[in-house]
């Protein structure tokens, strides 16, 4: 429990209503997108950088750890409170300071919700490319912390590629700026890059300079249906070989087609083994040629290929994909999300590997994948209340991670490590690389004050 003196001081810093210490209040901040939970000593929601600095100093005086949090939608356990910690919630730092379309920059506070930024940008015919499926709820600060991806990564990259500069409160309470409003402002070392994806273990980000782009003049959304998942992955390989870089190559298997169909009624055929959503963007005059090439490639194997004819049709297709995670809750009460990624050429093998794990462990797995990136999200369906089943699921998840590593892949393509995948990290990285992470952590946070225990232990 926090002492009365600390609570009083916190309230002085951020105001009475921005401090939570009651049991019920704390409980709601103990969860994220995973099945883990923890309990913080308190939750504090600053509204300015100065307040963040004061909070950091106060916590340092009392040797209390800080766990940063945005919307808490992450799939890694990155925001689960650790022992003797206070959660610092950035959801009240929601100002969009500036949108400068002429110079391709927006300046925002970390609590701005990705979708809210997209809405403001869209008014000016601009957008922020990283849009994880959680984008209606997740914050820019959270996206940054986990280095989120989304469906457009094949062409546009992940969150790190759109971060130009940051204002950061360091574990010693000092404020620095990394980068700036352009690609050329890093101070010797690329500090922005090391902070992006660091899950708050190196510093607390209080202002973000993001790169924004004009909405492409044209886009085309296509849908291909297959008997088997393996067939879909062949189309993916062929499209890339043809020198086309789609924005999107999203795959859902039969299970997900059915669960999303129950929910959205988008009209996907329930008997299809897999669906591939393909999107290209660019100049209007280049669309026909690309669509024709992709159509020829897909039609070699697909049982059906169609091009969306209207914005409504496009929306319908995307609603299915965006609701994929949630839709499985109709089948079983819990699901475990995995984020394994393999080199594109190993994608068919990874699909085979997932089927094998499902069989070996006797678990139900649905697959949704960013196929162009080799990034798979096998969803394992189960009931968390059943202890034995839960343990089987954990074992299956471990098998999935090992399978990805055996295929020269990674245990995380876009969700981050947090607590959930931390135990597998030394399977992916050599001792020298693990030590490099610790050197970096020690440089920023020698006393292990920020989000301790996430990604690595000191």
């Amino acid at each position, binding site marked *: 429990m926090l002492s009365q003196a600390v609570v009083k001081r916190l309230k002085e810093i951020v105001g009475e209503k921005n401090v939570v210490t009651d049991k019920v209040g704390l409980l709601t901040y103990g969860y994220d997108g995973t099945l883990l939970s923890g309990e913080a000593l308190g939750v504090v929601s600053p509204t300015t950088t100065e307040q963040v600095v004061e909070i950091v100093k106060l916590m340092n005086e009392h040797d209390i750890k800080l766990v940063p949090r945005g919307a808490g939608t992450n799939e890694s356990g990155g925001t689960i409170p650790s022992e003797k910690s206070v959660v610092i919630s950035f959801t009240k730092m929601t100002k969009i300071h500036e949108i400068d379309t002429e110079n391709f920059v927006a300046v925002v506070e970390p609590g701005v919700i990705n979708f809210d930024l997209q809405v403001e940008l869209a008014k000016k015919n601009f957008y922020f490319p990283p849009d994880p499926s959680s984008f209606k709820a997740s914050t820019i600060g959270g996206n940054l912390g986990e280095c989120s991806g989304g469906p457009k990564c094949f062409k546009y990259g992940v969150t790190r590629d759109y971060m130009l500069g940051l204002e950061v409160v360091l574990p010693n309470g000092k404020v620095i700026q990394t980068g700036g409003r352009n690609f*050329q402002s*890093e101070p*010797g070392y690329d500090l922005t890059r090391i902070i992006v*994806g660091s899950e708050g273990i190196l510093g607390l980000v209080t202002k973000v300079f993001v790169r924004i782009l004009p909405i492409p003049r044209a886009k085309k959304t296509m849908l291909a249906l297959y008997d088997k998942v393996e067939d879909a992955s062949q189309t993916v390989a062929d499209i890339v070989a043809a020198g086309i870089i789609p924005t999107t190559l999203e795959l859902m298997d039969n299970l997900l087609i059915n669960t999303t169909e129950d929910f959205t009624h988008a009209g996907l055929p329930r008997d299809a083994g897999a669906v591939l959503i393909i999107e290209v963007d*660019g100049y209007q005059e280049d669309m026909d040629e690309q669509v024709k090439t992709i159509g020829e490639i897909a039609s070699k194997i697909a049982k059906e290929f169609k091009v969306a004819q209207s914005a409504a049709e496009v929306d319908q297709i995307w609603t299915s994909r965006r609701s994929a995670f949630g839709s499985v809750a109709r089948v079983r009460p819990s699901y475990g999300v995995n984020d394994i990624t393999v080199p594109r050429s190993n994608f068919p093998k990874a699909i085979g590997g997932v089927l094998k794990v499902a069989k070996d462990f006797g678990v139900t797995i649905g697959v949704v994948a960013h196929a162009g990136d080799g990034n798979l999200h096998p969803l394992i369906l189960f009931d968390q209340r059943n202890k034995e089943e839960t343990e089987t699921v954990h074992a299956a998840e471990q098998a999935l991670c090992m399978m990805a590593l055996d295929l020269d*892949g990674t245990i995380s393509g876009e969700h981050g490590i947090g607590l959930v995948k931390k135990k597998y990290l030394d399977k992916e990285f050599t001792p020298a690389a693990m030590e490099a992470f610790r*050197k970096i952590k020690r440089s920023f946070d020698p006393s292990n004050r920020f989000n301790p225990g996430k990604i690595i232990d000191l």
Partner: protein
Amino acid sequence: MSNVNISKLKGIVGDAYVIDSPSEMAKYLKGQGKPAVVVLPASTSEVSSIVKLANEKNVKLGVGGAVVDTQGITGGIAMVMSRMNRLLEMDQLNLVAVVEPGLLHKEFLLKVAEFGLNFPPEPYEIETSSVGGCFAIGDSDSKSFEYGPTRTFLLGFEMVLPTGEILEIGNKCIKNVSGLDFIHFAVGSQGTFGIFTKLLVKLLPAPAAKKAVIGTFASMHKANAAFNTLIKRNVHPTRMNLINASLAKNAKPGTEGQLVIVDLQGFKESGKNIANEVASVLTLGGGSDVKIIEEGAEYDQVINGWLKVRAELNAKRSRTVEFVVGPMKMPQALAQLEALTGDLGAYPGVIVEGLLGYVCLALPEGTDKLDLATKVNKLAMSLGGNVKGLLGHKLKADVYNDAEMWKQTTSLLNELRQQFDPKGILNPGVSLEA
């Protein structure tokens, strides 16, 4: 005089690859420092052994692709990576290449082209730049608006740390957020975290069509106004560059006035239309001799002209001032800059990367660099930018009157460096102070 143990070095790499006669060493060196020896390793384990030896004897070690900067390594070892120049793998399915660091950038580009692929980063120096150097410098360039900065193209590496240990990281996945992002953090660290011994490079399919539009302008201002028109029209070429009259002749012999080079890499259909649009905007904006270049050899000539000028400026970084503003603020920036520099056309060198809002000024003899940079930084900050890099950070902190922030930044940088290189052995000429 020197602690370098020549015979041990010879034992590691073989007699032929340890050079200690000053006359033979010269072609591998640049700068004023006087290293005791040049050594050319052929493998990762040789690099590791050399670094361990340097640690034992507390000898400074500088590394370069074909040529080593000798600053800070007097009496020490200059390591040249040119024997580690193999293309180890070209993986077309995954659009990835595995290369050794000493492979020349220009040779890598030829190989990549043979496979119908594209490696966008520009060479820092046309003839001698290596792929290892490309990522060690890790800059952005005039194509970064479209393709992203250099770091975008590194997926992993093998590195010999300053203590001699070998670190491998990364994989062929184009999406990877596992662990801390040491992969991209190492890019641009100028060999202070370690020596690249293998690089896992991301490639792209080659663009279906390439075209350039060139033209000359009587004034820098008119050319920039034309750039703004293009941005307003939502036209974002691959490159949109401007070279002032003094340098334009080096890029394209016989040029009178300021030279505009617009590079269009993309698809055939849109390429045609955009080239026409760019050409008319340049002509209406006051450009003369505006020309669309479609033929391959002529296109290469134009682009190489740009790279040549770019490399000339890179070669004298101590005598240039680089700054960035918002791209649409460039006309204001140049107008205000002229109050400091006089006529920009006649200035020894000015290049503008229009899409990125970047300017590089080659200083006339006798100009006080720091003084000019300080003034330029104030100007740039009022237009949403700053002087580039570490110097820019110091000048920004000065403007904020925030000495503490500067102190905090440099102490963090030095702490990071020291964590990796406790004895301060590797590339001591790289300064993290401005």
